[in-house]
């Protein structure tokens, strides 16, 4: 064993993000003082990002199985069966902290990482989504962050060659010092050719593939788990730079050797690079691993074992190859111009041994590195319930028409075209529903099947009531998939929260996770992959709790998917679901009345399911001509979006009782707007009544304006210019 070059002091331990009792645990586990390299390995494996030490006990409660789930959480990505021998492979992951420090490169490496997670499983990525949360538009850094993050998401996905088909963008002052970048990738694989991380067989070669190792992002994984202090901008570690070109080569090379049956196990090097990929392969396979760092391709000179083990250089993979296929695999990698080096082997010992320049730099029990990681059941306090705001107690500061015109041009509701037009959303030739609808729809191979995907969460609801907010995020994802006619199958969740050591933040986390679990159970919508990002705080102020839900659904015939644009004049517009008029935490209350208050709308999961199944039935039955679910902004905003997407207006004659602004802008859940041919309307209403689904006639499509009874008509062109104008105007530098 290499004698310690550096004395392990309490200060050094603290700098590695390890608490004194955690360090004691290490001493007890290995029975001696760790080497520097070992200390680095422990700090990488036992930080929040890799060990899920604060979240693990709670995540256990999430439902993760269903007959169609092939692989739930625990691998690089989740896998679901979509029939015809095919599987969809997907996951969402955050790159929040790096994107704040260097928005372009932070976003690129986030997208690169999630793509790697998906193709590591043997799937070709077919779509990406991105959920972005930024600070208040008037904050001096916001514009710069939006511009860099969006360019970075596009810069990577466009070059790599995967369409970015959906996502969301929100602004709130609570993200001022901590913007969120959550990237999701969806891939397609043959259901019986999924690749996993678990190694098997003793004496098998472990191969390093991809780009060379540099000093990038050393301690990135620990940084991702550290709260930003005031000096954060100075203390930044070397930033990782994304190289989509190398990753595209890595994709092609990996898929090529997987098709040739060379691979026993594969793991990408993400957070904590070589350390976590090597130990995971061994631990999952009940094997030991010995690495010889002299063989690792390095970009920089004189790298120490410590640096190599902690480097987070991108576009790298570790594989266990079938020994007889080594030459064949190497030839493929060389053809693609990538590094290929045998850097170690599997052993029977279940030890993780790292050698460098003839010395043993680490010798650790491989399983315990993972299983013995500290687990905390952190104290939490439940978020106090907020009072329910009665619609009758909310005075309307302006008329309905003025409120709509205002709302449609606010940062959260305005069109995000400026963002998604910077993303190649059509490459592949399979994008049937482009960004701008409820969910993106991508054809599967040559059809007729299609996959629908969406990402959703309403952080202000989660803050006001974590449990209901968690339910709502899942329900909205389920609803968006339903609104295009898809059968919702499974979700990936990306849980972004503040500092879990604060009981009230932990309370938000626990509440949201319970809500998510409850909704997943009720909707048969299991969690198959996910990611947790904690410590999103600056100077003691946390983000809004933001559990982003990425949902995937299946269409038997993608051409039958519904879109939100009105299709023709003279059709009947129906509201499916009731209209009680819930204004607490609504955008109307916040952005029109200036009040961020009250309990959020409750989510009745049984109603969600019943109403959604009814709407999906109308779509598959061919009766629904346009469908849109109701969410932010409520009914009138949804109608405006349907009108703007088509250029066709509507005459609305609903009674709007008892409080008109609550009727038009309330954010009650489990609701959709559906259009049907006028001749079908009566039958549809009857059908709804029979199914016990509240439904009512709102009016009919007509003209080029929205007309509400005797109110002044609102021209669609006026709405469009406000809706499309805000974000480009803001980015061009006009006032927030």
């Amino acid at each position, binding site marked *: 064993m290499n004698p310690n070059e550096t004395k392990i002091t309490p200060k050094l331990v603290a700098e590695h993000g390890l608490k004194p009792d955690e360090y004691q645990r290490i001493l007890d586990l290995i029975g001696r003082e760790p080497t520097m390299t070992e200390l680095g390995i422990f700090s990488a494996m036992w930080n929040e990002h890799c060990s899920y030490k604060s979240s693990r006990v709670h995540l256990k409660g999430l439902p993760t199985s269903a007959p169609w789930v092939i692989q739930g959480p625990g691998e690089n990505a989740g896998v679901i069966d979509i029939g015809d021998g095919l599987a969809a492979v997907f996951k969402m992951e955050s790159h929040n902290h790096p994107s704040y420090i*260097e928005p372009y490169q932070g976003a690129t490496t986030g997208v690169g990482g999630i793509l790697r997670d998906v193709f590591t499983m043997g799937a070709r990525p077919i779509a990406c989504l991105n959920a972005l949360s930024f600070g208040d538009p008037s904050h001096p850094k916001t514009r710069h962050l939006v511009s860099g993050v969006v360019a970075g998401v596009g810069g990577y996905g466009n070059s790599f060659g995967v369409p970015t088909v959906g996502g969301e963008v929100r602004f709130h002052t609570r993200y001022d010092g901590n913007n969120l970048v959550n990237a999701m990738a969806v891939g397609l694989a043959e259901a019986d050719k999924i690749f996993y991380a678990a190694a098997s067989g003793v004496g098998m070669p472990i191969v390093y593939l991809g780009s060379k190792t*540099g000093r990038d992002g050393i301690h990135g994984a620990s940084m991702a788990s550290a709260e930003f202090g005031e000096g954060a901008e100075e203390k*930044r570690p*070397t*930033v990782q*730079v994304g*190289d989509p*070109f190398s990753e595209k080569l890595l994709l092609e090379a990996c898929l090529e050797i997987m098709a040739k049956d060379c691979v026993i196990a594969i793991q990408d090097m993400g957070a904590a690079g070589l350390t976590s990929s090597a130990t995971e392969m061994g631990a999952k396979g009940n094997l030991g691993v010995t690495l010889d760092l002299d063989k690792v391709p390095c*970009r*920089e000179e004189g790298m120490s074992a410590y640096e190599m083990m902690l480097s987070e250089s991108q576009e790298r993979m570790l594989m266990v190859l079938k020994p007889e296929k080594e030459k064949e695999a190497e030839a493929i990698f060389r053809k693609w111009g990538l590094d290929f080096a045998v850097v170690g082997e599997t052993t029977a010992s279940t030890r993780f041994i790292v050698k460098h320049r003839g010395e043993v730099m680490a010798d650790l029990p491989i399983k315990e590195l993972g299983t013995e990681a500290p687990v905390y059941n952190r104290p939490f306090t439940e978020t106090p319930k907020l009072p329910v705001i009665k619609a009758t107690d909310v005075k309307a500061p302006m008329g309905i028409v003025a409120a709509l015109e205002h709302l449609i041009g606010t940062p959260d509701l305005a069109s995000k075209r400026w963002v998604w037009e910077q993303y190649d959303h059509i490459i592949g030739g399979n994008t049937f529903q482009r960004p701008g609808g409820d969910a993106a729809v991508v054809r599967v191979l040559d059809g007729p099947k299609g996959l629908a995907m969406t990402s959703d969460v309403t952080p202000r609801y989660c803050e006001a009531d974590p449990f209901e907010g968690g339910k709502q995020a899942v329900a909205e994802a389920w609803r968006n998939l339903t609104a295009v006619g898809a059968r919702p199958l499974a979700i990936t969740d990306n849980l972004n929260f503040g500092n879990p050591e604060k009981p009230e933040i932990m309370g938000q986390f626990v509440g949201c996770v319970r809500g998510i679990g409850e909704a997943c159970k009720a909707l048969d919508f299991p969690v198959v992959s996910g990611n947790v990002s904690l410590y999103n705080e600056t100077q003691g102020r946390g983000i809004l709790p933001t559990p982003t839900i990425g949902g995937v659904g299946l269409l038997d015939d993608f051409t039958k998917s519904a879109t939100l644009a009105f299709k023709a004049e003279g059709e009947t517009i129906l509201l499916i679901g009731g209209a009680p008029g819930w204004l607490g935490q609504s955008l109307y209350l916040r952005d029109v009345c200036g009040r961020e208050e009250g309990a959020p709308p409750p989510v009745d999961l049984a109603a969600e399911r019943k109403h959604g199944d009814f709407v999906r039935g109308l779509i598959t039955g061919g009766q629904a001509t346009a469908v849109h679910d109701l969410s932010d902004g409520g009914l009138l905003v949804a109608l405006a979006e349907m009108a703007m997407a088509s250029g066709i207006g509507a005459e609305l004659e609903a009674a709007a009782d008892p409080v008109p602004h609550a009727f038009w802008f309330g954010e009650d859940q489990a609701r959709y707007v559906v259009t049907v041919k006028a001749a079908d309307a009566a039958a549809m209403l009857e059908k709804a009544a029979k199914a016990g689904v509240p439904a009512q006639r709102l009016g009919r499509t007509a003209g080029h304006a929205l007309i509400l009874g005797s109110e002044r008509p609102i021209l669609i062109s006026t709405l469009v210019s406000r809706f499309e104008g805000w974000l480009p105007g803001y980015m061009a530098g006009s006032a927030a």
Partner: protein
Amino acid sequence: MKARVTVTLKSGVLDPQGKAIEGALRSLGIAGVASVRQGKVFDIELEGSDKAGAEAALKDAADKLLANTVIENYRIEVMG
């Protein structure tokens, strides 16, 4: 006044462009290239003739816009 701001990547930061160019030069048969790092230059025309003022303005410009100081260094030359 003419000035030039040269922006280069800090050492240790990955330069995918440089790497690709290196490979291309090699396959074009250009011998002896050990490594390539790519940077940017900005040739700037300035009004007035206050050299010190110009330098200060350019430093401001480099910090705020021309260079990404997280990963890049810059150098300012005012030719006068």
